[in-house]
């Protein structure tokens, strides 16, 4: 499989704390889940990949440039309508306004919220806002979508809906890299698992193998504790 993202000895140190340490990794599949306990550096690694943080060591290589977008754990909306929030990203990328409107409406349709177009985004529920955030990212037609704990602050029904949307985004050909606490979610959405602990990469394993035959003891303990 052709790799579309390569990390080589990637590290991030803040003060004396090594948040991410010497991560070397090639990502080639279409959906990757980053797993690990709290404080493992999952979100930081995701931000380094997306370019929101700058590494203090190593390098990131994109063999060919890919359009990226990211969805965060907590959706952040501007004080404007839902439609305006989705159009904003398109406007930043210089799309003409008619196309902004068309794409934003289509994205809103795909996340199942066309009736919210003219509502104030910050007045929508948390679950709705996360779906709007997905629409905002999707409207940009990213080739890679980063998702940071996309369902961590949602109720089960909203989580299911968000998973359905992520599934569709993958089916439509967008590659995803997501962090999650939810092992079931990783199993449902990901092809491979990247397991981190203490900022270090412990293993990168196809998802089926990870849950049945994790390569490291740490990962086995993690799965046992999470499953309970």
């Amino acid at each position, binding site marked *: 499989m052709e790799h579309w993202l390569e990390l080589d000895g990637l590290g991030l140190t803040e003060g004396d704390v090594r948040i991410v340490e010497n991560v070397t990794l090639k990502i080639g599949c279409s959906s990757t889940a980053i797993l690990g306990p709290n404080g493992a550096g999952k979100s930081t690694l995701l931000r380094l990949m997306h370019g929101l943080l700058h590494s203090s060591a190593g390098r990131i290589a994109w063999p060919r440039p890919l359009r990226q977008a*990211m969805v965060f754990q907590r959706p952040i909306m501007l004080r404007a309508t839902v439609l305006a929030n989705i159009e*904003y990203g398109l406007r930043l*990328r210089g799309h003409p306004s008619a196309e902004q409107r068309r794409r934003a409406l289509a994205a809103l349709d795909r996340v199942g919220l066309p009736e919210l177009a003219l509502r104030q985004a910050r*007045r929508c529920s948390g679950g709705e806002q996360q779906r709007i955030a997905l629409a905002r990212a999707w409207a940009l037609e990213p080739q890679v979508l980063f998702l940071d704990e996309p369902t961590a602050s949602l109720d089960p029904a909203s989580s299911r809906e968000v998973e359905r949307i992520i599934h569709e985004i993958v089916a439509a050909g967008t590659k995803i890299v997501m962090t999650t606490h939810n092992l079931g979610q990783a199993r449902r959405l990901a092809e491979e698992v990247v397991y981190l602990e203490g900022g270090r990469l412990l293993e990168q394993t196809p998802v089926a193998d990870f849950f049945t035959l994790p390569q490291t003891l740490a990962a086995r303990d993690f799965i046992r504790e999470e499953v309970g």
Partner: protein
Amino acid sequence: MQDVAASLALGAQLVAAGDARLLAIIALSLEVSVTATLFSCFLGMPIGSVLSVGRFAGRRTLIVLFNGFMGLPPVVVGLIVYLLLSRAGPLGRFGLLFTPTAMVIAQTVLVTPIIAALTRQVIEGEWREHREQLRSLGASRLRAGRTLLWNARFSLTTTALAGFGRAIAEVGTVMIVGGNIDGVTRVMTTTIALETSKGDLPLALALGAILIAIVLAINAAAYAFKQWAERRWG
């Protein structure tokens, strides 16, 4: 005490009668301070925004400077603007000294740092919340600053108001650069100062009461507006 009561009664009469001299003074006060506040917002809000989202050498120094300038003594600002506008000064040939324009300039100098410093605080909070999302969407810092100014528009009404409150209530700059000329540059605060020193309390008290009423009314309106906006926009 009786003097005060009598003066207040006289003041109320002046207001009730719609005394032309009184109304002219109030109108000029509002005109000067509203104009100065508008200029200050126009200058200070972008400055505040750049100070919060920008990344450049000297940013911290500027923040400390603007915070400090929030407490500029009006008489000193008046003095400096006086020197700039006086005949011998660099802007003397425009003949602006002792005109309402000079008062607007002086109050703008006084209020701009207040608007800039308060805006910086507001936008810094916005930036903390929106930073990652805006950068992920591809917004440059400058663009993000513009977006956040618009996003914080309701909080910034309070900022503008704080600036207006400072402008309408100060006496030092308008006294020095305006000269308190009857019918030309006399505003509420300079009239209060003059009439009090002359011992003519009714006019001073009437103006004082009106000044307070105006400030209260504008603040109340802004508060109501902000509440309404927050319910509407979240």
